[in-house]
């Protein structure tokens, strides 16, 4: 008598079917764990942001630490932002000039460069530079504080670490980055004037009157508002990555690195959203 053997397409025999089911179960568990860790990470981010917002309105605001962070983020970034701003204006002008010369529209150069600096290049380049400098600094500092139990020590001495470390840094970044952007825009226009004088001859007053003659309120205002969001994103990501760093020294590097990568990416995404909203105005 012929022995019955269940043969299903793809599952040749009972023994194979058992292995197949086990493999399938393992993969299911693996995917469930991945999904769980993703959702718990998302929940942890929202919890962190809500704690930060709640503590921002606390009566015991750490004003001295906030001022110290404003100094660290704002004043200590000035040399880097100065160089970046001047080079940004200079390069934009040098690159754009030949194209405008072909159309006999060199007089539009100051206005074109100024608008592109104010609307896009100034805010985004400054925010990306700050994401690198400030985001990594926050990630590494808070990460190493976590590793060396300084955050625990703060908590044990009845101080809320979110209020002292996170709120002050996020608010300082939110306030200082718009100021740095304005500063970079100003230096970028100066750099542009210098660039215009490499191959041409244009006076300072003429250049600036041509530059600002084309700038309207809607060129400046939405671009300025989005810089507050850039600052908040850089501060939040830097602090979150540092605050949730693991216990080993390796995690400090990972926190700093991922703070830079994620905050740079989010700056670009926020910029995309801001451009879409501005476009509707």
């Amino acid at each position, binding site marked *: 008598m012929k022995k019955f053997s269940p043969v299903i397409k793809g599952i040749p025999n009972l023994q194979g079917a058992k292995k197949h089911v086990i493999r399938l179960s393992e993969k299911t568990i693996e995917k469930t764990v991945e999904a769980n860790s993703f959702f718990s990470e998302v929940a942890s981010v929202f919890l962190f942001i809500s704690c930060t917002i709640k503590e921002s309105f606390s009566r015991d605001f750490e004003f001295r630490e906030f001022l110290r962070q404003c100094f660290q983020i704002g004043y200590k970034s000035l040399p880097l932002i100065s160089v970046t701003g001047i080079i940004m204006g200079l390069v934009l002008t040098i690159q754009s000039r030949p194209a405008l010369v072909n159309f006999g529209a060199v007089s539009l150069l100051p206005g074109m460069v100024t608008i592109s600096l104010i609307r896009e290049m100034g805010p985004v380049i400054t925010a990306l530079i700050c994401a690198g400098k400030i985001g990594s600094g926050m990630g590494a500092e808070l990460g190493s504080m976590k590793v*060396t*139990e300084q955050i*625990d*020590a703060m908590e*044990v*001495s*009845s101080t809320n670490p979110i209020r002292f470390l996170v709120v002050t840094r996020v608010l300082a970044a939110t306030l200082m980055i718009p100021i740095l952007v304005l500063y970079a825009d100003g230096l970028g226009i100066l750099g542009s004037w210098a660039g215009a004088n490499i191959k041409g001859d244009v006076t300072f007053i003429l250049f600036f009157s041509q530059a600002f003659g084309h700038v309207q309120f809607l060129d400046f205002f939405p671009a300025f508002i989005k810089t507050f969001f850039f600052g908040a994103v850089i501060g939040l990501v830097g602090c979150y990555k540092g605050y949730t760093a693991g216990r080993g020294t390796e995690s400090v590097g990972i926190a700093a690195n991922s703070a830079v990568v994620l905050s740079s990416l989010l700056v670009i995404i926020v910029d995309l959203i801001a451009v879409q909203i501005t476009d509707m105005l």
Partner: protein
Amino acid sequence: MNDNQTAPITPAKTKSEKQVIEINELRKGFGPQEVLKNVSLQLFNGENLVVLGKSGSGKSVLIKCIVSLLKPEHGTINVLGENVSELTSDGLGEMRKKIGFLFQSGALYDSMTVKQNLEFPLRRIKKDLTQQEIDEKVIEVLENVGLADALNKMPSQLSGGMRKRISLARTIVVDPMIMLYDEPTTGLDPVTSDEISSLINDVQKKYKTSSIIITHDIECARTTANRVIMLHDGEVYQEGELEKFEKSTDPLIKSFFK
């Protein structure tokens, strides 16, 4: 207090029957690993309780549960008559003001000077103090730990022993009722270890604190202990006076008290 460091060290025998910490059936694990399985202990008023055990036996986890840095999975912790797990965040803050915690690494704030490190808890816990009173208090505790000249130094300029002393000063500056020491002598040379051990006794005498001292340093235990508890595999293995441990024939205890 510096004079006491050279004097023979004897632990203060000030134990009274009043419990300041009571832990019942405490359980804590990390994932599949169960670190504390069923720990019950009491800390009495004014005593130095030394918790001995191998690395990884759950000693540090135990005192982190007491100050709620870690949340236990089961069991109760009563500190000064209050159940820690039932406290609100404000209540927890108030409870922590009465507890000093000396971290294994010292945990000094790297971005602050020694003076700022000491002022940090003082400004937040004793808000009614004037700047002059804060300055006086800072100098007083620094003199108590023998490092008055380190006032304006950064933590990076201090040696391991100095960091531990400054960390101890930062802990006692707010006059805590309970002290929790997490391996206070780990990583220090024998001379500095003895100095830290004698400082622990001095703090107990001067500030009338009740202390839990987590250590695997037997010399530190001999110097400071009024009572000893040994943890093994996440459970209380043995409890009693130091003499009981010294005379024990149990191989595990003997391996500690060689």
